[in-house]
């Protein structure tokens, strides 16, 4: 007899529909002050570590990587984490030896330089298909003349930042139709 026949699954104790419905009642507070990154972004709250132009560039990149990341508060999430002693950014796993703020600043600046070289405009000002073309390029290799963190690493990290803010939350799980099933729900998403 298979073990699954002997041990009741969590779904048999509480239905998936109830799990998902229950999650809708959860109020999420913020890690970066009184409002969440999504609301901070919506209210145009100023960034504290990244310059405004860097924030716009990160949002433009984020929406190419995963549409909706900008509205989910990507720039405010990254900006808030950069101010912490022990940031929760996935960059932490990359054994990156340089300063975290420099990683984002230099990566965004390199992306803008690449965009200027190829399309004569900063990344946030070029057409969507041009943005996608550049992102595809940096996902595969470091383009000639790129100076900053290795381009594929910059792609990987910012892509994961975008995924974190869109799908790494209670709402993100619900959007995918999977139960969150927390032991302890975090006091705020990050």
């Amino acid at each position, binding site marked *: 007899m298979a073990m699954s026949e002997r*041990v009741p699954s969590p779904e048999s104790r509480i239905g998936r529909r109830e799990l998902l419905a229950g999650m809708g009642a959860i109020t999420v507070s913020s890690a970066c002050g009184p409002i969440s990154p999504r609301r901070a972004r919506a209210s145009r709250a100023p960034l504290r570590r990244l310059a405004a132009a860097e924030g716009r560039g990160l949002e433009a990149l984020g929406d190419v990587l*995963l549409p909706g990341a900008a509205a989910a508060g990507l720039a405010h999430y990254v900006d808030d984490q950069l101010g912490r002693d022990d940031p929760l950014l996935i960059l932490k*796993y990359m054994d990156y030896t340089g300063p975290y703020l420099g990683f984002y600043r230099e990566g965004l600046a390199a992306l803008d330089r690449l965009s200027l070289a190829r399309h004569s405009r900063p990344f946030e000002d070029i057409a969507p298909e041009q943005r996608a073309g550049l992102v595809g390029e940096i996902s*595969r290799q470091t383009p000639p003349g790129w100076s900053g963190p290795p381009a594929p690493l910059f792609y990987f990290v910012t*892509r994961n930042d975008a995924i974190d803010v869109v799908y790494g939350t209670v709402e993100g799980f619900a959007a995918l139709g999977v139960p969150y*099933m*927390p*032991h302890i729900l975090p006091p705020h998403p990050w």
Partner: protein
Amino acid sequence: MSALDEVDVVIVGSGASGSVLASTLARGGKRVLILEAGPERTAGDLYSSQIWARRIKWGGPPTDSTGTDPISVAFNQGWGTGGAALHHYAVWLRLHPEDLELRTRFGRGLDWPLAYDDLRPYYDEVQAEVGLSGDAVAEVWRPPGTPYPMPPLATFEQGRLIARGFAKLGLRTAPLPLAINSRARDGRPPCIYDGWCDAGCPILALANPLAVYLPKAMAAGASIRHRSVVTRVLVNARGDRAIGVEYYDAAGHRQVQVARVVILAAFAVQNPRILLNSATERQRGGLANSSGLVGKYVMAHSAANVFGLFREETQNFLGVTGGQLLCQERYAKDPGRGYLGSSQWLIANALKPNDLLGIANSRPELFGRPLHDFLRRAALHLATMTFVGESLPDPGNRVVLGDRKDAYGLPLPRVIHSYGVDDLRCWEAGMSEGQAVFRAAGAYEVWPSGRANQHILGGTIMGRTAEASVTNSYGQTHDVANLFVAGPGLFPTAGAVNPTFTIHALSLRTARHLLQNWASVA
């Protein structure tokens, strides 16, 4: 700087090895102090979130990880009470006898200074104290040992689907042995299969240090001091006796902790770093390094996942991160395959959408709308299994002191690591087999991940002689009798099983040896 009251034993690190040593030595009547570099963690801190889970991974100064196949250091290390074992996946397997006799049996690599039969009683004792769930009969490859005290954990649809593929190819599978309760035991509840192991198990169904050994250590009188970063082992003028450790406290003040015995249990990168940074006039190459081998023979299991999309819903969100089933059909080493090395499959890992091992990173090249589309399909239909491959010992793979320095002016570690020909052939054979299994299982789309690594081993290897190793079989350094090293850094070979069970068994053996030989050691 101030010198604090002498203790019998100071242990650097509160993870798997440190917690077993502290518990056993304190219960044996010794005054034990643990110095933990990271912050205090309690079970209530272990939030169910892959983002918050990053808190319990290494938060100290970075390691410069280099080489053709750089080791993932920060992800493997822990930060705070419980060390790396606080976020380990509790896949507790025994090394096989041949793993400990690589040189003798195959003329390659190294031998351990002890045999499986020397280790077996400690595996059995730890297993009884911690409680393991598994099926010793179904696990036909299992070395001798007492049966598991608990039945295996549940298998869900993901496991059943993949097992179908193994069966079609004539390959056997068995329930994965886990240090996770399948039923209530010793005041700890059973697993609820929510897949948050990587974030730490706050209900303590998973046997992390907070669940078993640290509470016993504290109850026996051991104490722990957090945010205490040990920088050097201090020795007498002759350099043959440790007198304690230098560390920096939470306020950044330099302190000295005097102890009769010093045990480094700070994992495979920081242990050699501390020894190398403890160089003196007499030991210019680092402490306990007369062999020149401190830092050498670092290993990491080759790792990769095979992924597949199924028409059926896979329930990949149910279960535990380590997996549901095991296959060790390729574990027995057979040079006739064209390489020397063992491997195993950890089948049907529970998945989350985000994070390093999340669903989204199974297709790292996807971005934009295709990434959304993939996630919506994969969230309910993706299945995976993890390959663990042996890495043969190579002195060129090593921890050295780098050019960069930490806040206290001491060099940071640099790890240099590349896989050898055998390691790569072993991995390639695994990827080929894994994709065949998924196709046989009925997946309509199958792909492998890129090559990665897991588990950091070696760097302070044990051995029979002072010329060819850093410590003896108890982790006692050949050069400094009252200085011990513990943890996976002692492993002279890697095998292909997850190391935490062996770390526990070795640490228990060391603690017993210390208690029995206290007068001559301390």
